[in-house]
């Protein structure tokens, strides 16, 4: 008997390519073929459409909690900021293809009772994988809606039992210039460092992610494990983590070190704190036309505003 294919098993093309681009490409591909027929026999596929596995992208919903449509998978894996590989948006997709994420360990230490080094395989099985559909707002004025797979950071921290001296969490990305050619650039103080205050790290919205759309993270998206802090600008969500330390002093992130006037420790999404380069009042949602208003704390104000009540957000930006 043939195995019947349930409709829900079939990934809608829109999840893959985005409805608008799917239509646009179909229409323009024919026009482009006519136009460029003479010089280009076969239009090259311009975007990576799959990762190494063949798992189709799937998500529990096509919308986030505010009704925003998910960003298509192809955009998510082809438009990234990952300076360890390249400083443009499509470079990381090409340069990270052979990034080796196995074996991979994450060491968790500092002011904790049970310092421990986790194998990434164990980390994935230790905690229940949850899907979290979050808006991601880049400091550069663009945003996506991404269905992450992962687990709350709190679960990992509870396991290692932070002591009362632990005031901040410091995260570190792999430093391996052979694999990550961008790290050969002397412009930045590698490795990439990020940090959270303890209450931020323990917040339920803060997750460690190992997948997107039900697929393992693509290297350019931060494989094998990354942080996701939806109410902060994207650069806080550090990728390819090898080290997590509980510390008593505020860590200096890579961006704070390289440009302290532009990037603060908190980096909460805030339309009222202008940046010298990009618009923070509005944003462009990838795959959609037009600009939309940027929301305080990226729309997660109800969930997180109470941990910043005594702070002047324009001073602690």
């Amino acid at each position: 008997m043939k195995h019947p294919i349930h409709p829900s098993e079939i990934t809608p093309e829109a999840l893959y390519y985005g409805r608008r681009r799917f239509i646009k490409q179909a229409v323009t591909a024919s026009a482009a073929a006519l136009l460029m027929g003479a010089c280009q026999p076969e239009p090259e596929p311009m975007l990576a459409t799959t990762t190494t596995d063949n798992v189709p992208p799937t998500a529990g919903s096509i919308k986030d909690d505010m009704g925003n449509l998910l960003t298509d998978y192809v955009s998510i894996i082809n438009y990234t900021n990952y300076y360890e590989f390249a400083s443009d948006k499509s470079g990381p997709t090409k340069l990270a293809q052979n990034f080796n994420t196995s074996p991979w360990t994450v060491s968790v230490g500092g002011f904790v009772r049970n310092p421990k080094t986790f194998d990434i395989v164990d980390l994935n099985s230790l905690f229940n994988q949850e899907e979290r559909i979050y808006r991601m707002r880049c400091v550069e004025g663009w945003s996506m809606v991404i269905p992450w797979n992962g687990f709350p950071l709190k679960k990992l921290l509870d396991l290692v039992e932070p002591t009362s001296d632990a005031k901040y969490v410091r995260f570190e990305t792999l430093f391996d210039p052979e694999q990550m050619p961008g790290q050969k650039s002397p412009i930045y103080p590698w490795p990439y460092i990020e940090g959270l205050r303890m209450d931020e790290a323990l917040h339920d919205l803060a997750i460690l992610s190992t997948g997107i759309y039900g697929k393992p993270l693509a290297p350019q998206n931060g494989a094998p494990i990354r942080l996701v802090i939806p109410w902060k600008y994207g650069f806080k969500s550090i990728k390819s983590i090898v080290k997590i330390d509980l510390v008593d002093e505020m860590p200096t992130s890579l961006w704070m070190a390289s440009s302290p006037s532009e990037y603060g420790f908190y980096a909460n999404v805030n339309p009222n704190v202008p940046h010298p380069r990009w618009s923070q009042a509005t944003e462009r949602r990838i795959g959609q036309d037009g600009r939309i208003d940027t929301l305080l704390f990226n729309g997660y104000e109800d969930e997180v505003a109470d941990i910043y009540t005594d702070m002047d957000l324009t001073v602690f930006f």
Partner: protein
Amino acid sequence: MKISRGPLIANTLCLIPLFFLIVGYFQGSLTANPIQALTLRSGRTAVTLLLGSLACRPLSNMLGLTSLLKIRKILGLYAFFYASIHFLVFSGLDFEFNLGWILDEIRFKPFIQIGLSALILLIPLTVTSINSIRKKLGKTWQVLHRLVYFIAILVITHFLMAVKGDIIRPAVYGGVFLLLMLFRLPSLSKIKLDKKPRWLGSINKFLLS
């Protein structure tokens, strides 16, 4: 009037970036954020062409490529053309001609103020490149067009401030600009290639005919 090959080739080459911008935009190959890609590319093309126009004089002096002096104006005009596209993408495509948004951008971002000043200063240079106006201006034209050096400094500063941290590309442009300025110093501007290879002469002749 017969158009010689130099200007013909220059015009064609200068339109190629526009062609790829349009094709890329409608084909959807300008990343997932095509407006940002359009902004970056039109800006880069503009600054490249501006430096190109500034390179014509020293290259002509040094290598005897007098044909380059005939395309200097074309490169300058296309620099203005791409700078205008750059501004239209910013104000129209990106900020939807929403005056409130655009004014906010200008107010809070010094790099936009600098870039916009450069574009505004390019306008009189563009207008006065019309031959009849140029003739009427006489000596004043020369003085006015020295503004281009100042504009180039503005543009490179704008570029430098617009990048996040990868300053290599704007730094290279800055270096090229300094080099082009150096070769305008009286002592250096007289440097000539002693033995010009014959093919240089042939190229020059080809472009002039």
